[in-house]
């Protein structure tokens, strides 16, 4: 990974404005949730967003990524031109691509080892998971083309496509917000109406996260982020939207919690299960977007950017992870795969689950801290020493209320 200051999360000092730590905090939290939810049979996943809401950490991650991308590359575009911004975006795309191929190698090693050593005919249907090993010459090319996306290796390809097409979104955003959002919405509606999807390998498969649908959330995030760069208010300051948002979040909470509890005990009824379930994640079902936007608006309203807790000790590790989101995200995917392996190979008791969850999160935090330290070191030994010594957040921003935070 490059250690220069090319990250989407450019530090506050470079931009002259306060950094909104809420973005880092909630993206960091989403990364922890993604790690936890990706470990099958993980008891801790009862305590993540997916247990109490229709949307989950994937929405949080994609939306905030769109928001920060528009903030950082939007500023670059306004100052140094579109070509320069596009070049920066493509450097990031390349990093993501390399990270994805690295994860693919690890997955392939795990599956091929299991399939060749286990090979019990009782599991002949199950062992088809290694079918691609029968034609590696095709499977590897399909992986390089992002068309082969094994278990859990499906969010990065989505992110890559979203960023690769992002220069167009930025150009449209510069015209005005609707010029970017209307085509995005049209594409989303078309994907749902006509069943549009990107083809994948093996034949007849499609991308698990349909970029044609998920781009809407990225564009929405980008619209808010860009509005912040240009200081244009997006949301009306009225109180009633917050009341609506609160009602949506509360209703989703009750319904989804009842499903979660119903899974534990039949005596608790699952409310509206027949009417609402299943909820399509691949195509980002409208109920997921509505829930996420309501949640985001509510959180932005209730948690101002200058909130004290963002500068307290416990928030620091989460913020660090959110600031180094690319590396920590890739690591979290790898760690979930390893945790799954450990739990299924040795023991999945509560003690082991706790150990695996704690170790995984500690590694994510440690890695984020290490990368932050490397970055500071590149900027100068004195800063690195200071970063090591204090590990303190930056001073509070002077004026940090963004379009989501205006009250």
């Amino acid at each position: 990974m490059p250690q220069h200051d090319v990250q989407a999360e450019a530090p506050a000092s470079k931009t002259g404005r306060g950094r909104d730590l809420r973005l880092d905090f909630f993206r960091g939290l989403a990364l922890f949730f993604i790690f936890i939810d990706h470990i099958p049979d993980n008891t801790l996943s009862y305590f993540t967003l997916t247990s109490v809401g229709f949307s989950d950490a994937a929405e949080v991650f994609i939306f905030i990524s769109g928001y920060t991308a528009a903030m950082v590359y939007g500023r670059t575009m306004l100052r140094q031109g579109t070509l320069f911004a596009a070049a920066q975006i493509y450097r990031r795309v390349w990093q993501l691509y390399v990270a994805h191929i690295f994860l693919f190698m690890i997955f392939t090693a795990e599956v091929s080892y299991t399939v060749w050593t286990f090979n019990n005919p009782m599991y002949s249907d199950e062992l088809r998971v290694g079918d691609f090993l029968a034609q590696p010459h095709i499977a590897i090319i399909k992986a390089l083309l992002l068309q082969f996306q094994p278990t859990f290796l499906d969010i990065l390809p989505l992110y890559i496509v979203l960023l690769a097409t992002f220069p167009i979104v930025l150009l449209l955003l510069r015209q005005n917000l609707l010029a970017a959002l209307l085509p995005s919405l049209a594409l989303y509606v078309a994907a749902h109406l006509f069943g549009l999807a990107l083809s994948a390998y093996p034949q007849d498969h499609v991308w698990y996260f349909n970029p044609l649908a998920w781009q809407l959330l990225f564009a929405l995030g980008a619209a808010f982020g860009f509005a912040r760069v240009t200081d244009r208010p997006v949301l009306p300051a009225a109180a009633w939207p917050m009341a609506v948002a609160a009602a949506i979040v509360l209703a989703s909470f009750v319904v989804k919690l009842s499903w979660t509890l119903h899974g534990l005990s039949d005596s608790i009824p699952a409310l509206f299960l027949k009417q609402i379930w299943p909820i399509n994640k691949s195509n980002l079902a409208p109920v997921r977007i509505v829930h996420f936007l309501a949640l985001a608006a509510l959180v932005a309203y209730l948690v101002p950017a200058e909130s004290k807790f963002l500068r307290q000790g416990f928030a620091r590790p989460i913020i660090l992870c959110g600031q180094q989101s690319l590396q920590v995200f890739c690591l979290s995917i790898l760690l979930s795969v390893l945790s799954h392996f450990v739990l299924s190979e040795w023991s999945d008791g509560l003690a082991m689950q706790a150990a695996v969850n704690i170790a995984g999160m500690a590694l994510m935090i440690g890695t984020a801290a290490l990368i932050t330290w490397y970055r500071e070191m590149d900027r100068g030994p004195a800063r690195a020493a200071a970063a090591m010594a204090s590990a303190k957040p930056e001073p509070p921003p002077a004026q940090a209320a963004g379009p989501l935070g205006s009250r």
Partner: protein
Amino acid sequence: MARPSPSPLAGAVALGLLFFAGAATAEETQCQAPPELLASEAKLPRLAQHLKERKPVTIVAIGGSSTAGNAVPSPAQAYPARLEAALTKRYPGVPIRVLNKGAPHEDAQQVLARFPRDVVAENPDLAIWETGTIEAVRRMDVESFATTLDEGLALLYAQHIDAILVNMQYSHKTAAVIDFDPYLDTMRRVADLNDAYLFPRFEIMKFWSDNGIFDFETVPKADRPSLATKVYDCLARQLADAIAEALP
């Protein structure tokens, strides 16, 4: 979504069962599962009536490789044949046939396409649909899987055929590289919404594996057919217990 892990109670039950194992008949492998795993409110009314009236009973077992019995020397050792034996023993005097319509490597959609010919045409009292493995292996869309299951159950119920869903097989190794969770959840929910009985094969095999009743991982090549024979027989007897449980 996570499932609750085996409870301490399950462990205690296992210990108890191991204790009683010594007293049981020699030729049958002791492989009881905790009764709470088999408990369900779903019923099998048509089968119950035929058993009660001592009419001939036809059951169709449809599914993938583990229904067909690819791992055992002959179809007589596959689970449908063992189920026929277990049910015949339990309901003497009632002619019971269990037809094996297993075919390897088909997804639920492909199996559903065989329903008119392989299930409905046989006019069975009960259809046992073993499914979900190929979906999990290929990470197929969960929503379409749910729809396919719904359609299959609706088709059976329209013909007044009772239905049991059977979920996936378990082993450490396969569970480490395949994410079964969303598909297990989907099957549980579909069964729940349709008042169908879900036979928790995955959970039962996991219980056996966790408690050392079977070791699916380190079995030498030569012993694999005999392991499969034992496992299919055990599953068939558990299924017979479950069927008896689900009769009103």
